[in-house]
């Protein structure tokens, strides 16, 4: 490892260094604003650095290429947003606030490691860094029952999913004798018949189970609604975007590098998981009246849509998946941003009642939320529409008709609950004397960022070409 390698590692080093810096700052002088400012500066620097760093393989573990930089940029941008949301959110709450940022930075670091890992060791390392920090983040408001419950649930399930993962990695090691993805690829390529690959296949399925837990794919999705509901709103946004985004980048890379998509049986398993996720997410959301839970179920369905693109691991499929991920980040962050702004010091604004007639009180906020929900539903003029279009296009290209038919039907079911929230937003206040007082204008910074997100949402929905070019140059080297 030499100097050039260190430069390529800069985004990781910056985030890791910032977390240490924040810790030191807390030791010297406990101040919320300072911790926040340091975090913001560190993340922004990491974000900027991803644009012009040289690609390099750093040791056997990490491949810092355009693909990794693209996703690191996406993840750090999302973390910046989460940090912005957290500042005003935490300011309205009791307890120490500064350590939150340390955990946030460490979790981001874990997710970033995932995007660059080409080795099972760095995979496991990244997942554990991410998970351990998340236990703390989810249960950060430890005086309240719901976050604590959510934290414990996540701890137990993430722990067991790590066990699956470790077992899977062990099986693959037993078969291949090496831990990097390329070795797996060579092993698969060397054995054309695929008869003696049973051990490898079993290991891959176990790894898929572990990843399925993290991504909240259908048979492994049970924790999602509870954790989403219990965790503080900005943390929920983080779990839904950064944590899943990192895993997804890893999954895409693992599939395209190892050529595991050559197993028809594995593809069958993926299809079943995708179909189950799309249907379960959208159907379960129908019965929920809690906005955070609705978004949780919706995210299960969206992970199912994304899996369709993974399965079609053509160039078009990967482009579609990356585009979808960007759109998903924008809409989920936007939606949880609105939830954060509306949350009071006592509890998060997660009941549907909290949103009744929002349009007549805070029309700007209601419109941002509407735009995000319509984008999640895949309505034109939003990035969500084009994202869904690309996924369907990728599916049609490789003639996965069953998958895209399920996608279409389940996203129509999904419309129903998105529309229910939208309808609630636009309901008239019941009567004059009952009309609630205009909401206090908290957190102008978040409102501004939400407006920017909405602009991006529409921009990518109407002129996706620049983003597509960026994505195509980023994935250029893994195909």
């Amino acid at each position, binding site marked *: 490892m030499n100097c050039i390698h260190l430069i390529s590692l800069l985004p990781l080093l910056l985030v890791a260094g910032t977390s240490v810096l924040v810790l030191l700052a807390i030791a010297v002088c406990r101040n919320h604003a300072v911790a926040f400012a340091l975090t913001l500066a560190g993340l922004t620097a990491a974000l900027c650095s991803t644009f012009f760093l040289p690609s390099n393989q750093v040791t056997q573990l990490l491949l810092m290429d355009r693909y990794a930089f693209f996703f690191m940029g996406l993840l750090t941008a999302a973390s910046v947003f989460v940090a912005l949301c957290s500042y005003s959110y935490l300011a309205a709450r009791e307890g120490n606030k500064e350590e939150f940022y340390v955990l946030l930075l460490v979790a981001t670091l874990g997710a970033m490691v995932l995007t660059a890992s080409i080795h099972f060791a760095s995979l496991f390392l990244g997942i554990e860094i991410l998970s351990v920090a998340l236990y703390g983040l989810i249960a950060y408001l430890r005086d309240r029952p719901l976050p604590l419950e959510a934290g414990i649930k996540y701890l137990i399930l993430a722990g067991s999913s790590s066990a699956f993962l470790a077992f899977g990695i062990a099986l693959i090691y037993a078969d291949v004798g090496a831990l990097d993805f390329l070795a797996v690829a060579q092993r698969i390529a060397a054995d054309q018949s695929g008869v003696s690959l049973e051990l490898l296949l079993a290991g891959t399925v176990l790894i898929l189970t572990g990843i399925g837990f993290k991504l909240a794919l259908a048979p492994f999705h049970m924790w999602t609604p509870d954790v989403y509901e219990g965790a503080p709103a900005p943390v929920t946004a983080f779990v839904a975007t950064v944590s899943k985004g990192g895993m997804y980048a890893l999954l895409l890379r693992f599939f395209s590098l190892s050529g595991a998509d050559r197993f028809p049986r594995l593809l069958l398993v993926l299809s079943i998981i995708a179909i189950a996720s799309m249907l379960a997410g959208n159907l379960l959301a129908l019965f929920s009246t809690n906005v955070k839970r609705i978004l949780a179920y919706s995210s299960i369905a969206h992970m199912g849509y994304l899996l369709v693109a993974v399965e079609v691991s053509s160039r078009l499929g990967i*482009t579609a998946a990356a585009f979808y991920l960007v759109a998903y980040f924008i809409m989920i962050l936007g939606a949880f941003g609105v939830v954060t702004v509306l949350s009071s010091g006592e509890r998060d604004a997660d009941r549907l009642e909290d949103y009744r007639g929002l*349009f007549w009180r805070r029309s700007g906020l209601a419109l941002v939320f509407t735009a995000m929900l*319509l984008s999640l539903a895949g*309505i*034109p*003029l939003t990035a969500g*529409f084009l994202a869904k*279009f690309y996924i*369907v*296009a990728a599916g*049609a*290209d490789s003639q996965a*008709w069953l998958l*895209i*038919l399920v996608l*279409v*039907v389940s*996203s*129509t079911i999904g*419309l*129903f609950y998105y*529309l*229910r929230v939208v*309808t609630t937003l*636009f309901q*008239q206040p019941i009567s004059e004397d009952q009309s609630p007082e205009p909401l206090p204008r908290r957190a102008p910074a978040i409102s501004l960022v939400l407006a920017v997100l909405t602009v991006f949402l529409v921009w990518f929905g109407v002129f*996706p*070409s620049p983003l*597509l*070019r960026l994505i*195509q140059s980023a994935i250029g080297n893994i195909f």
Partner: protein
Amino acid sequence: MILVWLLAILIAGGIVAWPLARLHPLLSRSIALLAVALDLVLVLFLAARDFGDGNAGTGWHEELDWNWIPQFGIHFHLGLDGLSLLLVLLTLFLAVVAVVASWNDIATAVGFYHFNLLLIVAGILGVLLSLDLFLFYFSWELMLVPMYFLISIWGRERRVYAAIKFFLFTQLSGLLMLIALLALYFAHHQTTGIYTFEYQDLLGTQLGPQAEMWIMLGFLAAFAVKLPIFPFHSWLLDACSEASAATNLILASLMAATAAYAMIRFLLPLFPDAVHAISPIMIVLAVIGILYSAILAFSQTNLMRLIAYASIGHLGFVMLGIFAGNSLALRGAVMTIIAHAISIGALFLVAGSIEKRVHSREIESIGGLWDTVPRLSGVALFFALAALGLPGLGDFIGEFLILIGTYQAHIAVAAVAACGVLAATFYALRFVQCAFQGPNHGSWQLPDLAPREALILGVLMVVLLWLGLYPQPVFETLGQAANHAPALWR
């Protein structure tokens, strides 16, 4: 370039009209009116320039082709020919009518209302003008959300249910069309190696008979629900009975026109063999729709629902004309689309005017209006007669041509469909009889037509009379579209 301006003016008008309502609602209304009126003037200018002398050249009269998403071969490609010109004129004309008709009726969120209205009109124009199938699908879907808001915010008691039903029906069918569209896109790529959504390129795509049938069915699903044809019509009834009169005008008149246009523009030329194979089924559905709606219209008590059934009956004729398979019937179908949009739209406005006065949509509770509002009643009678196909008015010409065309192809079908015309007489006259004649149960003492109402209804009457007495300009304008689809219009 003018074509882009048409869309830009509408969208910009909507964006400007929205916040201005905070200053004064009148400002927002004026901007909206200005935008649609300006568009109408522009299109009239185009029509006078290109179609006035009757011998305009071949090809698209106005065309514009920009790269939009080159990675997928998607273009921002707009074009105008005789067929689209007629329907664009119709759309903008009725959009002006809709803005004026809702001038005083919308009290809440005036700016947002006009934003949605203009966005829908922009979406409709996008459908009518696009020559790129992705752009077409984009515009097709663009109409949905604003329409959802129009129904769910400014409708009546069960508006949310109606709006969600509308949205689910149209969205699901639209997604089926998306799959079919992509299947066509990749099938074209397989045979030619080119990724394109261009209408002209896709026209000659080689498809196996089975693939052609499935892809055609995907497109047909979207068009059949939006039109709507017989088994898929229930959303229209719920939407019409809950939405306001101006919304119904757009929903039943203009959205149906886009669906019929899409069938003529895309379905027939893209999949000639599959359409031919399925046309007997569609003709039977059309005739069932005509008779079924006439019978049900007769027994309706809700005024808006009655008119919605009447609309479905007319659209049954349009379907008949499109699938009859000869150019006479097809011309009749286009004529019926236009006349139906005007007469049914006007009936919705009349019903809205009645509702505003007596605060009810129930026919039984109205009764005996002729003495107190003679002008409104007279206008209603005129449009009811137009709807039942009285000679001398636009609907008659269209239905007459469709029946002649159908007669050449299937005599029995024409005979049964003609009974539908007869059945329309019953419900139209019942409407007049119950609402305006008869005893004045409610002892109504009501104000007659206001100048604004009289003006728009008067203009609609004049246009309908003109279409009925001198339809030649319509057919001449249409005839020039023959250059683009020779197989269809012979």
